[in-house]
C-alpha cells in the first residue's frame, strides 16, 4: 500500500507542494479529490518539500487532496493497437476506443549515441514541388515550418502527412484549436490514412501542463516504432504553444527568465525534442516536422531563433506559399544529386531567376521603366508562382522538374537561363511555347 499524503502546503499556478519522503525526482503522483483527478510530476525536492506540476491544472484542488506517488516516471502505452487511435497528451483515449494500459514505455529516454548515427541518405517525397525540388525533405531530418498565425500550416502538415512515403505518422497537437483537431482527423480518415496514424492531441481548452507531455509522448512512441524498423514521420503543431507552456511553468517556479520571459533552458528543452530525429542504422527512422508560429512574424523572437539553431533548416510559410528565400533544407545536398541529373540545375536556375523577378517587381512598383528583360522576368515569376509555388500543386518530383523546364522554355531562350549546354540539349522542351505549358498546367489547379 502506497502512502497517501493529504496535506498540500502550497498551491501556486499549476504547481503544488506536499511534505513527503522517499520520493524520486521526476516521479509521477496521482492527485485525487472529490470531483478532481490528475497526474502530477515531481519537479523539485527540497528536504521534505516535494514540488510537483499538476497536469490538469490546479483549479479546484483542495489542500487535503489525496496525493499518491506512483513510483515511476511518466510512461505511455506502446503497441500496434495504437494505430488509428487518438489520445490526449497523457495517453488517455480521446476517441471511443478502449484504454490501453499495458506495455508501458517511459516517455523520456536516453539520448542517441552520436557514434551510432549515420549520414542521412533517403529523400522523403511529398508531392509539393517547393519541397521536393527546392528544399528536399530527408529521412531523419528535423525541420520547422515558420509561419505567422493565420497561414495554412495545418493544411500543409496534413498534405505532407498524406503524401509522404513513410510507414507511420505520429501527430502531436499542442494547444490545437478543436476545429483543427477535427480537420486533421477527418482529413486522415477521408484519405484512408488514419490506420497508419497515431494522434496525440492537446487542445487549446485543455490544461496547459498537459501540453508539455505531447512532444515527449509522440517522440517516445515514434522512436520505439523506428527501432522496430518503421520509418516514422512525426508532425508537431504548434511548438510555440509548447514553449509558452514551458515559460508558464518556469515563471510559476520563480525561475529567473532570460529573454522575453522564456526560461534560460529553452534551447536545451527544444533541442532535447528535436534531436530525437534519427536514422537508426539497420532499423527505421524518425523524421520531425514541426510548426513554429512566429509571434509578430519576428524570426528573432526566442522561439524561432532557438529553433533555427537546432533544426536542419526551416520552411517559411508566407502568403500561403513556401517562401523560396529563407527556406532551407540543410540536408538537401545529401539527396538531390541522385534524383535526376537536372535537379540541382533546375533548383538553382529557377530560384536565381525568381530573385530577378522580385527585383523587377520592386522596380515596377516604384514606377521605373520596364525593359524587355524585366517583362520576361515578370511573366516568369507569375507562372512560377501560380503553377509551382501554389500549395495545392501536387505532382511527383519528376513531373515538377519537367514543369520547371516548360515554364523556363515559355519565358526565356536557353542561353538567357545560364543553364549548361549539355543539360539544355537533354532537357529543354523541343516544342517550347505555350502549348506545352498548357498541357502540363492541367496537373496544376484551376485558378
Amino acid at each position: 500500500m502506497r502512502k497517501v499524503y493529504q496535506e498540500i502546503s502550497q498551491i501556486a499556478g499549476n504547481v503544488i507542494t506536499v511534505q513527503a519522503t522517499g520520493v524520486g525526482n521526476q516521479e509521477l503522483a496521482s492527485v485525487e479529490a472529490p470531483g478532481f483527478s490528475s497526474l502530477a510530476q515531481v519537479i523539485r525536492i527540497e528536504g521534505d518539500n516535494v514540488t510537483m506540476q499538476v497536469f490538469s491544472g490546479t483549479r479546484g484542488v483542495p489542500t487535503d487532496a489525496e496525493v499518491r506517488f506512483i513510483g515511476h516516471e511518466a510512461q505511455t502505452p506502446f503497441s500496434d493497437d495504437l494505430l488509428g487511435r487518438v489520445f490526449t497528451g497523457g495517453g488517455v483515449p480521446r476517441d471511443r476506443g478502449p484504454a490501453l494500459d499495458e506495455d508501458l514505455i517511459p516517455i523520456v529516454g536516453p539520448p542517441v549515441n552520436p557514434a551510432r548515427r549515420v549520414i542521412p541518405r533517403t529523400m522523403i517525397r511529398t508531392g509539393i514541388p517547393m519541397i521536393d525540388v527546392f528544399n528536399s525533405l530527408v529521412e531523419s531530418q528535423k525541420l520547422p515550418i515558420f509561419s505567422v498565425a493565420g497561414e495554412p500550416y495545418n493544411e500543409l502538415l496534413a498534405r505532407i502527412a498524406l503524401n509522404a512515403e513513410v510507414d507511420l505518422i505520429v501527430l502531436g497537437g499542442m494547444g490545437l484549436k478543436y476545429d483543427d483537431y477535427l480537420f486533421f482527423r477527418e482529413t486522415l480518415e477521408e484519405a484512408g490514412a488514419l490506420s497508419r496514424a497515431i494522434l496525440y492531441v492537446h487542445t487549446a481548452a485543455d490544461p496547459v501542463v498537459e501540453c508539455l507531455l505531447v512532444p515527449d509522448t509522440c517522440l517516445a512512441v515514434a522512436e520505439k516504432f523506428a527501432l522496430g524498423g518503421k520509418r516514422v514521420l512525426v508532425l508537431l503543431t504548434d511548438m510555440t504553444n509548447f514553449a509558452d507552456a514551458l515559460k508558464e511553468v518556469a515563471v510559476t517556479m520563480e525561475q529567473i527568465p532570460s529573454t522575453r520571459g522564456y526560461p534560460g533552458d529553452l534551447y536545451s528543452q527544444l533541442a532535447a525534442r528535436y534531436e530525437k530525429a534519427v536514422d537508426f542504422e539497420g532499423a527505421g527512422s524518425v523524421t520531425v516536422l514541426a510548426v513554429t508560429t512566429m509571434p509578430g512574424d519576428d524570426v528573432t523572437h526566442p522561439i524561432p531563433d532557438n529553433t533555427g539553431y537546432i533544426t536542419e533548416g526551416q520552411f517559411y510559410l508566407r502568403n500561403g506559399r513556401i517562401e523560396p528565400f529563407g527556406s532551407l533544407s540543410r540536408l538537401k545536398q545529401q539527396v538531390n544529386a541522385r534524383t535526376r541529373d537536372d535537379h540541382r540545375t533546375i533548383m538553382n536556375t529557377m530560384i536565381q531567376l525568381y530573385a530577378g523577378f522580385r527585383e523587377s517587381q520592386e522596380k515596377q512598383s516604384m514606377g521605373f521603366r520596364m525593359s524587355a528583360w524585366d517583362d520576361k522576368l515578370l511573366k516568369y515569376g507569375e507562372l512560377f508562382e501560380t503553377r509551382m509555388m501554389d500549395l495545392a500543386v501536387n505532382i511527383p518530383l519528376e513531373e515538377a522538374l519537367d514543369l520547371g523546364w516548360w515554364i523556363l522554355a515559355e519565358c526565356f531562350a536557353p542561353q538567357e537561363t545560364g543553364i549548361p549546354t549539355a543539360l539544355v540539349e537533354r532537357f529543354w522542351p523541343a516544342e517550347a511555347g505555350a502549348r506545352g505549358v498548357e498541357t502540363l498546367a492541367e496537373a496544376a489547379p484551376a485558378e
Partner: protein
Amino acid sequence: MSLRAGRVKGVSGNLVTVEFDEAVSQNEVAYVRLGDLRLIAEVIRVRGRYADMQVFESTAGIRVGDAVEFIGELLSVELGPGLLSRVFDGLQNPLNVIAERHGFFLPRGEQTEALPRDQVWEFAPRAAAGDRVLAGDTLGVVAEGIFEHRVMAPFGLAGVAEVAEVAAAGEYTITDRIAVLRDASGEELDVAMLQRWPVKRPIRCYAERLRPTDQLVTKMRILDTFFPVAKGGTYCVPGPFGAGKTVLQQLVSRHADVDVVVIAACGERAGEVVETLREFPVLTDPRTGRSLMERTVIICNTSSMPVAAREASVYTAVTIAEYYRQMGLHVLLLADSTSRWAQALREMSGRLEEIPGEEAFPAYLESVIAAFYERAGAVRLNDGTVGTVTIGGTVSPAGGDFEEPVTQSTLKVVGAFHGLSRQRSDARRYPAIDPLESWSKYGSIVPDGELALARHVLSKGHEVQEMMKVVEEEGTAMADFVVYLKAEYLDAVYLQQDAFDPVDGASSSERQRHVFSLIARILGADMAFQDKDAARSYFQTLTQATRDWNRAAMEEDSFAAAQARIEAMLSEVSSDA
C-alpha cells in the same frame, strides 16, 4: 584519497544539494548512487554542511537520502597515447566503446576508461637514470600514428626530480611503470604513460609564453589575407543560424596548417558531428597523406546530451589540446558553440538563484570566457621546442545580434573576429564573413601596403553602393562607380571561395600572395572607360577570367594562361600597366 560520504537533501533540475560530514573541496567530483548507477557530479557551491552539486546526467529518480560518494579529486581527464582519432563525450567516455556495449543509446551512469588499457606501445627511453627533470620533461617516446608522442614527467610534479630508473625500450601498456622518479625529499614516484589532470587547471609546464606571431594558414583567402589567425592565437566566429559557422569550422579543421585538431562539438546538432565522424576517416590530410582522423580528437556533447556536461566538454577539449602542445606540436581547438556552454552556465546560475547579469547570464560569464581563451598560447617548452594551442570558438548570438553578452565578452579577449553576416549568406557569398565588420590583430601573409589598399577599396566601394541606392547609377560619378566595381570584383574573386572546388577550395599561402599582388595592381590601377555599361561589362569579363584562374592549379599551364589573360585585360584599360 579516501571516499567520503554524503546524502542527497534536495533536487532541482541538474542541481542536487548534498549534506556532507567531512571536508569537501570546491569542484570536487562525487558520485550520486541511484540503485546500481553512479551518476557523476561536481561541487559548485558549499554552504555550511551542504554542497550544491551539478549532476552531469539526468537526475530523474534521485531521492532525498540517496548516498553520495566524494572521491577527493577534481574533474579530470586521462592523458596518454591513444587519444588521437578518438571520439569522446564531454566527460571523456569513448563513444565507440559505449556503442559496442549498449547499442544506439547512451545509458546513464556509464563510466568507461577513456584510453584502452590492453593496447601496447613501443616505448623508447629518452632519459637515463641520474637525469634531473622538471614536470613535463620527456622521459621517453612512443609512436602515435604520425607523431612522436612524448611520455612526460607528471605535470603535477613539484620542483626538480631525479630519474631513478627508466624502462628499457620495448612494449608497454599505458599503465605499466616506465620510470621511477625521486623527488627532492627522496620520495620515489612511479611513472606510467597514463596521467590524469584536472580539466579546469591549465597545464603550465613550460619555460615561457611567447607572443603568437607565426601565421596559422587555413587556406581560406578571406581569413589568411584579411583576418589572419596566428598559431597560439584566439579567434571567434559569431553568426546567426544558417550563416555557415559550422561549415566554416569544418573547412578550417580540414585545411588548417597544424599538427593536431581538437574539435569540441558543444551543444550543437548531432548530425554535424556525424558528418565529421563519418567523413574524416576517408579524407586525406594533404600534409601527411594520411587520414584526417589520425590527427583529430573529437569531444562531442551534442544538444540532446546532458547540459551540465557541455561545460566539461570544452575544458576536456582544451586540456587535451594543451597535452599535445607539451610535445612541441601545433594544436588547433575548435569549439562549436561557446554560446551553448554559456547557456549551460546560465541554467546552473539560475538554479543556484544567483543574482543575474544581462539577459540572465551570470555576472562571472566574462571572466569564465576570458580564462578559457587564455588557455590558448604559444609556449617555449623546457627543452626549447615551441608548441602552440590556437582556440577558435563559434558564438551563436540570440537573434543574430552581436550586442548580446556572450559575443561581447568573447570579443574582449580574442585576437581576431570573424563575424558572419546573414546578408552575405543570403546572397550566397561564401564564406559569409563580413569584410567590413571583422577584424584581426595578427599579421597577414600579404604585404601591408597591398592589404591597406584592398581594405580602402572595400570600404569606399561600400560607401558608393549605399549612395547609389539613393542617387541611382546615373547620379554616381564615374570614378566612384569604378571603385564600386573594383570592390565587387575583389569580393567576387578573392573574398568568396568555392569550398566544393578542389583547387579553389584550398588556396596555399604562396598562391594567395601571388594572386593578391596582381589583384592589388588591378585595384590600384587608374582605369578609363567610355561609359558605365562598358565598365560593368569589363569587370564582368574580368571576374569570369579571374574565377577561371582560381580554378586552375598553380602548376598547370592554364594557370599561367589565365594570368596572362588578366594582365592583358588590365593593360587594355589602364595607363600604368
